């Protein structure tokens, strides 16, 4: 692969960095401002006197701790279940000929573009009947439903890029479709599955509509909803700096995931081009 490194490319690179990191720097800076400073107004970018106080305050906030646990648990479970189901489905779509394939794709497409808000009324109704309101499964189930299209589409795109001749070769050698799938395709598809899992996790971690509509206590309330209801030490003062602190804290996991798996995510997304 050839790359040229003109000045415009370098400038572009710098712009991307500013674009992505400036708001992060901003909430971080805001999180270091003492509450007294933001109460009387503090419009400059950097704090007049930086302090870590907000971090200890927010970290000791019991409701916030619960929200973190809820979000991690719910998002992880939903991700694992969703990706397992989606892998099977995407394989069938990318690889097999069967009646109703278009119907399945249409359903996935319809769900992917479904206006989530239209469901909260009836879902609230259903969940109170089944005692799922304000519980983990009450959020895991809708998260699965709404991450499946994304996972299926991402995975089927990956699966189409896999050299299927190898599977056919395996089948000619006497392997069944299932064996060919498991022995040959799964290792090839693993990076794609991993990417799909990360995308799915981000989606579930990001959800707000279900989070505020289908919970009402810390028993299941996830982080975004908790942020929206965040109560500072003074309920009538918008606790800007503490909210920023909470915001930074929930962004750290994202940054960690991105740092650890950046190569996999991007390489996964662009793997089709680097074919042998």
């Amino acid at each position: 692969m050839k790359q040229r490194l003109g000045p415009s490319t370098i400038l572009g690179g710098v712009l991307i960095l500013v674009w992505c990191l400036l708001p992060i720097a901003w909430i971080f800076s805001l999180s270091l401002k003492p509450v007294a400073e933001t109460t009387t107004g503090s419009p400059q970018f950097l704090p007049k006197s930086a302090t870590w106080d907000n971090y200890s305050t927010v970290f000791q906030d019991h409701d916030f701790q619960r929200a973190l646990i809820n979000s991690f648990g719910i998002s992880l479970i939903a991700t694992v279940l969703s990706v397992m189901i989606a892998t099977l489905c995407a394989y069938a779509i990318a690889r097999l000929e069967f009646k109703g394939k278009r119907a399945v794709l249409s359903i996935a497409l319809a769900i992917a573009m479904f206006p989530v808000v239209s469901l909260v009324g009836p879902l609230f109704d259903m969940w109170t009947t089944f005692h799922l309101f304000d519980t983990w499964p009450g959020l895991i189930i809708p998260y699965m439903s709404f991450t499946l299209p994304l996972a299926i589409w991402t995975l089927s795109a990956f699966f189409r890029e896999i050299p299927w001749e190898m599977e056919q070769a395996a089948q000619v050698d006497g392997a069944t479709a299932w064996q060919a799938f498991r022995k040959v395709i799964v290792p090839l598809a693993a990076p794609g599955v991993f990417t799909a899992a990360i995308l799915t996790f981000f989606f579930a971690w990001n959800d707000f509509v279900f989070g505020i509509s289908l919970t009402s206590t810390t028993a299941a309330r996830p982080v975004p909803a908790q942020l929206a209801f965040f109560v500072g030490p003074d309920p009538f003062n918008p606790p800007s700096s503490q909210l920023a602190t909470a915001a930074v804290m929930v962004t750290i996991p994202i940054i960690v995931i991105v740092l650890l798996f950046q190569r996999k995510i991007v390489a996964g997304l662009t793997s089709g081009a680097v074919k042998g």
Partner: protein
Amino acid sequence: MATATTTAPTATPAAPARESDRLRGENRLGWKLVAPAVVVMLVVTAYPMLRALYLSLFQYRLTAPDDRQFVGLGNYLTILTDSLWWKDIGNTLFIMVVTVAVELVIGFAFAMVMHRIIFARGVIRTSILIPYGIITVVSAFAWQFAFSLNNGFVNGWLPFVGSDFNWFGSHWPSLFAICVSEIWKTTPFMSLLLLAGLAQVSEDMLEAAKVDGATWWQRLYKVILPNMRAAIMVAVLFRALDAFRIFDNIYIMTRGAQNTESASFLTYRQVITQFELGMGSALSVLLFLSVLVIAFILVKIFGVDLAAARQEG
């Protein structure tokens, strides 16, 4: 999962029979593999949607169940003749068009840079994944604070706004702030999808075009964009429908004040804060229909059957 085993037929002697057996087996395996996904997707959408359709025919407030009364299509009539609905639809479409258009341009530029850059590749790709992965609510707060009068830096940095300009004090500035947050958060998604498309454009073709004397613009329009058609289509469709459902940013930044309400926010208010299940259900149905119409129009514009396009790859 592991129990779904040994379904494809093993070899049978007669060749034609083997073919049809194979097809049937493949058909069956296909359905077995997609069934769990289909069930999970429908359980949370199909039944609730049917229930919404039913409830939309009533005047029904959750906190006054005894006053429930059948009104036929009355709720739909009220909504469609109400200026608030059309104002909110207008806002929603405005946000959708503006954000997707801006994101497409910036996202493409970002994708080009990421595709070409050699040094600091990891740093840039890591950075661009941060806004993508960040919670929308966090983005909304970050920008709300940035634009806020007492604690925001924007007024101080922008030369053409006064230091006491209240961004959330009137309609267009509020909408602008909402769009900024939305664009900041979702441009990376766009650019990553476009990067994937860009990576599929053959370098050989580009080299050949260059040898033939094509200018940069010609190469962009004649080689790069046509070869990225599928990626652009998917990116625009997903982002447009996502933007049409905009809710989080509005909820955090304005709560719908200054007429910045979206159709989703209106529906949420009716169902969740007003407890008007009848009217709210009618809005839900209309919202769903709006999405279908927009999807239909987008697919028509691109002139490609999306499901088919995905199958071809």
